[in-house]
């Protein structure tokens, strides 16, 4: 394990509740943030099994009730598979809406250094998103942001976006593997790894090669139904995704499942 840090990082939403979150203005969903400012359950370092999840709006569950968010569905399936009590598994979801692949890899690693998890599940986001550093400020770069048009129009390319996504996946994969943390990563655009249009690019091809043999789930979340914000995938789509993701997680992390069963005996 890398050098341990004393505490998790928190965000300013700590211990708050709100009815509006990012593009969800429906008022139908309650967003409750724990003492660290993340949506979902409180940290319980003494839980038998600790799972970390991270991603963007798909993973924080914009427009979805907590029980319908895919990592929560994943947790329920895990509890059933290993035959433990719900409180034996502590799922911490460090996602934040509209965030980038830089955020996902960086935050997951940082939180894992505070308390090593038993497993990590992530859903990487759209390749165009990144963090732009200006002095100590982190600017979240989004194509949809009008004030950032110049950057995307003049400097951004889809190839650079893809390389940034692949670098972040690779960084987190190396972190997990070097620290013996079972993992599975999915993503909103993870299938681009298999897209011939991009892998003929010699630089992208190198990153794709680096990722060969990684625990990746190539199923992308579908928009079968819609969440309360009418934009994001709805409860059925999240459930369907979690089911496929969980199946792959079990197949690719058999040792983890066996050990988790023993821990819960």
């Amino acid at each position, binding site marked *: 394990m890398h050098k341990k840090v004393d505490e998790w990082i928190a965000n300013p939403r700590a211990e708050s509740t709100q009815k509006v979150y990012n593009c969800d203005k429906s008022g139908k969903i309650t967003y409750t943030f724990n003492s660290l400012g993340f949506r979902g359950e409180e940290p319980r370092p003494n839980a038998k099994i600790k799972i970390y999840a991270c991603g963007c709006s798909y993973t924080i569950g914009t427009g979805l009730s907590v029980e319908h968010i895919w990592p929560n569905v994943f947790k329920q399936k895990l509890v059933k598979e290993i035959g433990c009590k719900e409180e034996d598994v502590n799922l911490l979801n460090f996602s934040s809406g509209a965030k980038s692949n830089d955020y996902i890899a960086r935050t997951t690693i940082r939180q894992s250094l505070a308390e090593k998890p038993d497993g990590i599940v992530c859903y990487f986001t759209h390749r165009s998103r990144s963090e732009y550093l200006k002095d100590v400020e982190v600017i*979240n770069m989004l194509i949809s942001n009008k004030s950032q048009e110049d950057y995307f*129009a003049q400097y951004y390319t*889809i190839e650079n976006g893809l390389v940034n996504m692949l670098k972040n996946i690779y960084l987190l994969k190396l972190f997990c593997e070097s620290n013996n943390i079972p993992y599975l990563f999915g993503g909103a655009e993870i299938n681009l790894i298999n897209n011939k249009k991009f892998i003929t690019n010699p630089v992208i091809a190198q990153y794709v090669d680096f990722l060969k043999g990684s625990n990746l789930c190539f199923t992308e979340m579908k928009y079968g139904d819609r969440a309360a914000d009418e934009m994001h995938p709805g409860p059925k789509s999240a459930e369907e995704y979690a089911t496929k993701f969980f199946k792959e997680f079990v197949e690719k992390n058999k040792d983890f499942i066996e050990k988790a069963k023993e821990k819960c005996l």
Partner: protein
Amino acid sequence: MDDKKKSSRGLFHTVGAKLKKLSKAEANKKLKLLRKEDPNIYPVD
């Protein structure tokens, strides 16, 4: 140039190249295409 050299040419390219500044029309066209890849509209978080 043999195939091996051709395929690796892109890895060691272009020293000192200048990026072409896009015109307003070109920039708008590029943005329209880029925004298609991200289906969701978000306010800045």
